[in-house]
């Protein structure tokens, strides 16, 4: 089966000289949910920003068989949807419905088609009663749901979520896990939340200094790199 995301030997250096990615190879198979783990500054977010061409490094990135380059960006951005860490960055239209329809309209759909897609996406995330609400009147959990709906309205094949549990309380986190489980897309989740990764991901990769140094079942990777708070406490307490 051909991977929906295929990355080979990806390198990236920021203008200040910081090497953020130093040769990343990665595959995401259809239907898979992969957690990207690693310390702050290890290159996880930089990596996902390459997947839809927001950053351009050295190496190759393919999404659904399409190489990520200037000529294919419009198609790529329809195929891979990124939900950013802070939903306030993503929700800028005056009403929820308009915000969710924003991406669909940018794909060239008619207002009627975009509205239909936005309504379907809002129903998927359980926000049907919020069409006319202003995004800043929503709770953190609701904002996150609307942000996800905004990406779902573009009907992507791959969902990328950057720290999706930030700002959410435990019930909000559980609701988000249930929602993400119900979505059929392949998913890539950047997270520090070990429990969230365990409950959602079929596989995990571990980033360190711009490289993937661990790849396998989420439980094994979490244990291998002492990424579990409980485990770390036991180790330090010995």
């Amino acid at each position, binding site marked *: 089966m051909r991977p929906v995301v295929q990355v080979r030997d990806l390198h990236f250096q920021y203008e200040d000289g910081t090497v953020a990615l130093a040769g990343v190879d990665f595959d995401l198979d259809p239907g898979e949910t992969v957690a990207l783990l690693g310390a702050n500054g290890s290159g996880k977010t930089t990596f996902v*920003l390459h997947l*839809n061409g*927001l950053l351009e490094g050295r190496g190759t990135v393919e999404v659904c068989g399409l190489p990520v380059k200037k000529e294919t960006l*419009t198609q790529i*951005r*329809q195929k891979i*949807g*990124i939900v*950013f860490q*802070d939903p*306030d*960055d*993503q929700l*800028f*239209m*005056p*009403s929820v*419905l*308009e915000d969710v*329809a*924003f*991406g669909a*309209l*940018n*794909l060239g759909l008619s*207002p009627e088609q*975009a*509205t239909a897609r936005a309504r379907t996406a809002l129903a998927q995330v359980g926000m049907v009663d919020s069409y006319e609400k*202003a*995004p*800043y009147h929503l709770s953190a959990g609701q904002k996150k749901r609307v942000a996800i709906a*905004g*990406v779902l309205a*573009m009907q992507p094949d791959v969902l990328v979520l950057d720290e999706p549990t930030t700002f959410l309380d435990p019930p909000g986190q559980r609701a988000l896990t249930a929602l993400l489980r119900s979505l059929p897309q392949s998913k890539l989740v950047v997270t520090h939340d070990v429990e969230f990764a365990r409950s959602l991901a079929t596989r995990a990769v571990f980033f360190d200094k711009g490289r993937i140094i661990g790849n396998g079942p989420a439980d094994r990777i979490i244990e291998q790199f002492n990424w579990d708070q409980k485990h770390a406490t036991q180790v330090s307490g010995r």
Partner: protein
Amino acid sequence: MQHVVLERWSRGSSFLHRRDARAKILALLVFLTVVAVSSRAFQPLALVFLAMLLAAAISAHLPVMGVLRRAAVVLPFSLTFAGISWLSGDPRRAALLVEKSYLSALAALLLVATTPLPQLLRGLDWLGVPGFLLMVAQFLYRYLFVITEQAHRMRLAGLCRGGFKRGGRGFRAAAGALGVLFARSYERAESIHRAMVSRGFQGHFRLLSTPRFRLADAAFLCLAAGLPVAALLSVRIWS
């Protein structure tokens, strides 16, 4: 916050709220023009205009005192210039300046308080206001909340560490906080742009719908624009 109140007011369902934004904007433009060109016997005319605006506020179920108070935000500016006119020996001009600016602010406030921002921006777009300006207005309105909350959090953090004292050190701390706020706003702008580009944004906004201009909107426009003009002409004929 001021714009939270206006946002709440603008989501009403009165006759005035339901009118097309274009009709309300055109009526406001006519009103402002009439106020600007009238100078002879302005006092009785000002009372008529005030009565009209108050009637509009009441019909829109807006709190009259709240509307009057918020329109007074323009007074510090107009009183400054009125004071200069007064000192230069022209008290009539000073009075006109205050009255006209207050009435104009009241009328503009009524438009904003009865028209949700998206509709208002669409109406302005239809009138040919540059799209870039409208986009800036929309973003400013949206992110005022976020930046204000950020400033509030920074202020609390500052207070927890001894606060922003008066004098040179306090000024330095406040200036530093302001600098950080600007830097964070810049970062925020970059993040927003990334999120927009990720959803296919290519430089201009596409809208979901264009509202229809109905017969009731045309009737409202004729009435709202006709009344001040009629009042102006009546005063001119009578005087």
